[in-house]
């Protein structure tokens, strides 16, 4: 599996407890610096996990929640991993919490139906059929429970390993595999049903 640029690079791995702590930890909490360095990456992962139909206001709202959660968690951050990795974990957990909101879920489902149909600014390489296919896949994905969906997206799209996902979501590796297995199976069934309906 080829490596992809995630922006928040988890491959750097944790440092050692005895090793020097990252300079940023010694400097203490710096919201402005953290936002400047990591806002785009946090926004990207939030948008990726919420799906293509997520309204900008929702993505911004969740990104804000991520930085707020980071602010609260900062005293407990021991510098054993990169700040980017730590933020990535917070972002995935915050998204997961947000996705449990029925109202937000319903909004996303409605938005995925809408967004690709009429976009006033179209990129020349954005094909109508491609967008319909993406819409169809996300329609199926949004029927899967968020906890499974997030694992699926992290593994299949963000190309994180099960161990990495376990660390990010703070769940055992076995649970990651179980959720991934169920997500794949459910998605496959949903896609097949959806393809049958289209025929």
């Amino acid at each position, binding site marked *: 599996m080829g490596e992809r640029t995630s922006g928040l690079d988890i491959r750097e791995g944790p440092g050692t407890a005895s090793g020097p702590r990252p300079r940023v930890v010694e400097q203490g909490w710096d919201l402005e610096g953290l936002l400047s360095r990591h806002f785009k990456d946090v926004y990207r992962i939030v948008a990726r996990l919420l799906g*293509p139909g997520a309204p900008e206001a929702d993505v911004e709202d969740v990104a*804000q929640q991520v930085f707020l959660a980071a602010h609260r968690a900062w005293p407990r951050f021991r510098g054993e991993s990169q700040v980017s990795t730590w933020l990535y974990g917070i972002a995935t957990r915050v998204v997961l919490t947000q996705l449990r909101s029925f109202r937000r879920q319903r909004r996303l489902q*409605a938005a995925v139906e809408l967004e690709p149909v*009429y976009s006033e600014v179209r990129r020349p390489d954005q094909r109508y059929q*491609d967008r319909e296919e993406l819409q169809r896949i996300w329609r199926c994905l949004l029927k899967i429970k968020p906890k499974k969906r997030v694992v699926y997206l992290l593994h299949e799209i963000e190309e994180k390993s099960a161990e990495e996902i376990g660390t990010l979501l703070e769940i055992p590796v076995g649970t990651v595999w179980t959720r991934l297995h169920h997500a794949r199976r459910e998605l496959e069934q949903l896609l097949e049903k959806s393809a049958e309906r289209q025929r």
Partner: protein
Amino acid sequence: MSDPLDQARAVLRQAEVQVPSLGAEARVRARLRGTLDRRWYEPTWRQVVPALVAMAAAWVGVAVRPGQAPPAAIPAQEFAERPLPTPPRGALSSPSKDTFTGLRFGSSARYVLPEVGAARPVLRLEWGNVEVGLEPGETLGIETAHASISALASRFQVEVTAEETRIQVAEGTVHVQGPDAPEQVLGAGQRLSVRARQRPSAPAAKVAAPALEGEQRHTLAVAKQALAEDPPRAAALAEQVLGQAPGPEIEVQALALLADAERRQGAHRRAFQVYGRVARHPGGRGYAEEALYRQAALATELGQEQEALGPLKEAENLFPRGPLAPERAALLSRLELKNGHPERAAAALLRVPVEGRPALLAEARLEVAQALWSQDPEQARSLLQPILSDNGVPVELLRRAQVMLGQDEPGAPAQLR
């Protein structure tokens, strides 16, 4: 792993990820700064004690009132989706700009919810602030110590203190009745402060878009949300906006929504007509190409191929290199083929200036080449050649093209059917 999952993964990986718009970081920074400055997430004892007292008072006040539900009965997800901090006195914070509907109470709010199923729901707000987002057709009354507020399909915020009730309207229209004063009507961007036994102060100057336009945008936002699950409702809301003589920008959005809603309801003829209005609308340039394509596709579904040709040709003239050129060419080639004009079908495919949609175009090319083989094999070959050099063509279609090019006798294509 099975095929659909592989395909899904490929599509998901290729999909563009939303990037932050200009100003997104600044907006989040400002909101975060405001939140952190208020320190609502780490309250001090000075903040906690009055809040606890207020909560206890609210509990007692509600519990002793017969026939009214205690706060414990509030479905947390429904009514307290995101507790807002009480803004500092004298500075009512702006209602949020999203399409939120429902009620959001500030953390120190004391209130009695409307009775379930009440014909005219009335919220009793005793203290603190509430943000209200009403869907079109929804009404709500709010009673405070200083004022009676009634609203229909609007978004606004109310804050009650010991001295006064402050109302700020984001969208729609809100009626405010003070204790001994005539009713005031507030529009979008207006705010009002009502004190006990005092005439309401004059509404502040408008600072936002006119009230009607705000309400129309709100209605359209709700219609968009309804489109997937309830197309008739989306259509009704879009028509409601169209009936209010909106400006060109809102009008074309409403028309586009109406067309989509009609199509999703299966009202193809009506959808065809509305897409036509979208395509010809002075502000519809951003929608025209897709609207014309939709018209053609709908006419084809209705079995009126001749009617489909017009929009396709118009779109080709207006958007020769538009993103839907491949879809258009494929549809046009099928229509020409059905009308018995394989040479015109071939010309339509050879005219496609933008490559893309390889599978769709390859299928159309194969179909036309097959029909054209007996009368113009050279033209048929030129149609098939691009399939061989396009990496995106599925293997099955590639193989069919190879076979056709390898057996160029007139009878060959029939074997491939």
